[in-house]
């Protein structure tokens, strides 16, 4: 290298150093963005990528998901992980690309609510496995026909899959789905941020899924409690208000529209002919221009103009909320509490992106009354386990005055026997970083979450005060019941009448007490409620799981 007098190098020298960065180098430098910054998180991330993909695929194919996860320790720091789903599978030719090429996927080029988006996830997991253990990954796929078994690696220089072996097996049972077998370095824990916790929360947000987890310390089963698939979200075109400059550039270069007018009307939602003329006039661009001919400065003017014109908000039918019923069912099956409530807010928009907020509360029962409430955060049905502090969902919880609803709070999270679930659904989730663990605090989002929490809080406070009153009534009754024998005995001694008859009469008189007569009404009502509930659930979950193919194997 030729070094100049002042210690600098020439442009020629510089250009000689320039070369393509290998994908493994990129990975090493961006571990934290991809979720592999520490050994504990790495295991969770691998499980998350595999399970999210399975759930997404099943949802799209209209299949009730049946997912198996197995995790075995095979070395001091290494773990073998097996995944299996009953999804639609991937066609033979695309399997290596789907698992062995970064940024290859079906979800990035569209605006639709889904769990994954970038197409980094599962190939990232394979890459991590390869970098930490040097072992090949095994992927099997079937769309119902033959089973294709691939043993593969990722060529880190070319960012391309390298198939080590490919075998075909017959498939009498017409199994369809994906099986993945990988080995990776990690650290296994079972509390707080952990694989079981991730799966538990996933099960809460996906009560239509049946998940079996075989961990180092035993098997966990998350039953299916809902037999209906969630409503499929519709794909929508981006709204001008929410478009990022870079994406607009890319859309201009890849669009099939012949002119800019058609581009704006066809590739965006809510843009009519009047709006188009307004936008183009403001951007000083002719309507006949070819989209690919728009230069950088023009794109910049166009981007600005798109934000200035008055437009109708984007359609919101592209969202797939969990729905109140499902949240309650999901919470009920994993949390032993007394009271459950859920609120789904109507969809709304931040910066041109439709989004919808849902919250659920579980209260009482076995939950600890002396600790801060637990918060389960979900973005597009995926649990967020890390970075709670910087997340708009947690911030919104802290901004609500929970003392109004009968809980304690001294700045920060409420204290009481409560678990809070918040689901944020959007075609574009504004994560604070690529780690995808915290949601940015746009005022529109915080406001919606707070409204939902307050609504749920009001319902909770009714229950809390009813419970408190019922408890007081019970104590009142117990008090009298404790004293009645004493009073009866004394009155018996005093008057010479039969003590038992006096006791009986005192008990009858007690039931005339206004408060105590309410206890009787309450217990009758509770009974009715229970009867109603069982009547509404004619089928038991055990009966259905038997018909599941995955269960037959065991």
């Amino acid at each position, binding site marked *: 290298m030729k070094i100049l007098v002042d210690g600098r190098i020439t442009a020629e020298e510089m250009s000689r150093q320039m070369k393509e960065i290998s994908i493994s180098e990129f990975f090493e430098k961006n571990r934290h963005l991809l979720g592999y910054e520490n050994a504990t998180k790495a295991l969770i991330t691998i499980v998350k990528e595999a399970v999210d993909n399975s759930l997404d695929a099943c949802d799209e194919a209209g299949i009730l998901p049946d997912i198996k996860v197995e995790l075995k320790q095979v070395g001091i720091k290494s773990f073998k992980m097996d995944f299996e789903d009953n999804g639609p599978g991937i066609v033979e030719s695309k399997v290596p690309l789907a698992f062995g090429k970064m940024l290859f996927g079906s979800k990035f080029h569209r605006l639709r609510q889904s769990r994954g988006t970038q197409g980094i996830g599962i190939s990232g997991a394979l890459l991590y496995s390869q970098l930490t253990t040097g072992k090949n990954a095994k992927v099997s796929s079937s769309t119902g026909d033959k089973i294709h078994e691939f043993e593969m690696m990722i060529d880190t220089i070319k960012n391309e899959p390298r198939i080590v072996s490919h075998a075909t097996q017959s498939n009498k049972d017409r199994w369809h789905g994906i099986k993945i077998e990988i080995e990776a370095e990690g650290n296994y824990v079972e509390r707080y941020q952990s694989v079981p916790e991730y799966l538990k929360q996933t099960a809460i947000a996906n009560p239509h899924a049946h998940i079996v987890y075989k961990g180092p310390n035993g098997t966990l089963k998350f039953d299916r409690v809902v037999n209906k698939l969630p409503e499929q979200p519709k794909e929508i075109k981006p709204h001008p208000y929410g478009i990022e400059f870079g994406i607009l550039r890319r859309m201009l270069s890849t669009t099939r529209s012949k002119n800019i007018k058609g581009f704006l009307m066809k590739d965006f939602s809510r843009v009519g002919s009047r709006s188009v003329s307004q936008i183009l006039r403001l951007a000083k661009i002719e309507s006949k221009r070819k989209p690919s001919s728009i230069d950088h400065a023009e794109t910049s003017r166009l981007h600005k103009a798109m934000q200035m014109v008055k437009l109708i908000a984007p359609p919101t039918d592209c969202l797939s909320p969990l729905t109140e019923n499902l949240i309650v069912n999901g919470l009920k099956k994993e949390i032993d509490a007394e009271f459950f409530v859920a609120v789904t807010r109507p969809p709304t928009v931040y910066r041109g992106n439709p989004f919808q907020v849902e919250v659920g509360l579980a209260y009482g029962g076995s939950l600890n009354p002396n600790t801060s409430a637990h918060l389960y955060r979900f973005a597009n049905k995926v649990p967020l386990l890390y970075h709670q502090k910087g997340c708009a969902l947690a911030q919104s919880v802290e901004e609500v005055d929970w003392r109004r609803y009968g809980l304690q709070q001294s700045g920060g999270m409420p204290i009481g026997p409560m678990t809070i679930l918040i689901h944020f659904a959007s075609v574009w989730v504004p994560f604070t970083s690529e780690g995808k663990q915290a949601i940015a605090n746009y005022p529109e989002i915080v406001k919606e979450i707070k409204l939902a929490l307050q609504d749920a809080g009001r319902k909770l406070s009714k229950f809390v005060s009813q419970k408190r009153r019922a408890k007081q009534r019970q104590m009142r009754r117990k*008090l*009298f019941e*404790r004293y009645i024998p*004493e009073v009866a005995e*004394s*009155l018996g*001694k*005093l008057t010479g009448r039969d003590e038992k008859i006096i006791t009986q*009469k005192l008990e009858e008189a007690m039931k005339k007490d206004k408060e105590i007569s309410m206890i009787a009404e309450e217990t009758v009502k509770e009974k009715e409620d229970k009867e109603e509930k069982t009547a509404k659930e004619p089928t038991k979950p055990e009966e259905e799981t038997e018909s599941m193919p995955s269960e037959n194997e065991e």
Partner: protein
Amino acid sequence: MVENDTKKKLVKMGEDILKDVEKKKNPKIEIPIRSLSNIVYDEKTKSLTLGDKTSKRYFFNVAHAKKFMQTTIIAAFCNELLNQKIHTSLRDMYYNLKRTLPNSNENTFDEQSESDPIIVDIEVALDLLREQLHLNADVRGRVVGKALVSDRGDRVDWSKLGSGGWAIPSNVEAIKFKKVDAKFILVIEKNAAFERLHEDRFWEKHKCILITTQGQAARGGRRLIQRLSEDYKLPVYVFCDSDPYGWYIYSVIKFGSMSLAHVSDRLSTPNAKYIGLTLSDIEKYGLEKYTIKTKEVDIKRAKDMMKYEWFQSKEWQKELKLLIDKKIKAELEALSGRGLRFMTEEYLPDKIKKKEFLL
């Protein structure tokens, strides 16, 4: 009053409660209120009596239930005492009735301070004395002097009791006075002053009866003072510390107490006079340096007493004001500042001679 009547009253209380229960009503016991708001000072009899305000104690009321239960337990216990013809003390009753309720951590009574007021409730509600319920009041107070009495058939000469004197029993109804050769009764709050006067044979020299109440006068002592003063028309002089506590001892002897206002007619001695000690005496005899600084509670008590109807005389108002203004009080021992025998030889004879009393 005949024992049978007492029993009838207790049984009727039980029957009345059962009547409510029978009608599926919330059973209650009606008890006259004993707080200052229902205490009436009767100018004519010069004693404190209860007004006609009552409170109702309901069983099916969380705030009343326990007291209701306790009242029935005690009523039944007293009925049993009457049936068995035995007497017992308040303390003994408390220990007899204290036990833990089945399947709970709750006791019928936790402290004697819970059972004592219930007895007063029953006394007031049924217009009875605790003696009639076969419960003995505290035994406190001693007497010496020029009188001869008979107690359970024994003759007791109050002038021949050596140094100790005669302990006043809790119930003095059965005491018969055989011979009373006294001209007045001197009631002394403190034991020490009583001992001094007794050693100096004050009662012999001045032909009187000395009674020490040993603090607040017990029922037996109060009844004894009343009977002697009524039967033999003896003047009663009360000798207490110069502080609100001592003055209230005088007040209880003379007018009756607020907590036993319902039996004032049997316990109070309206013609009792306050002989000393007063803060004016302290000034008069130059005993200022033997005084004690008042505490906040003394001032508060004095201010309360200034408002009592039965402390409205000019002289009393003056004494109370002296205490509040000067913030001092004095004990009987202050008189020793003029010599150990000053009380016996000068102070009391002088006061009696000059009739220097507060009313």
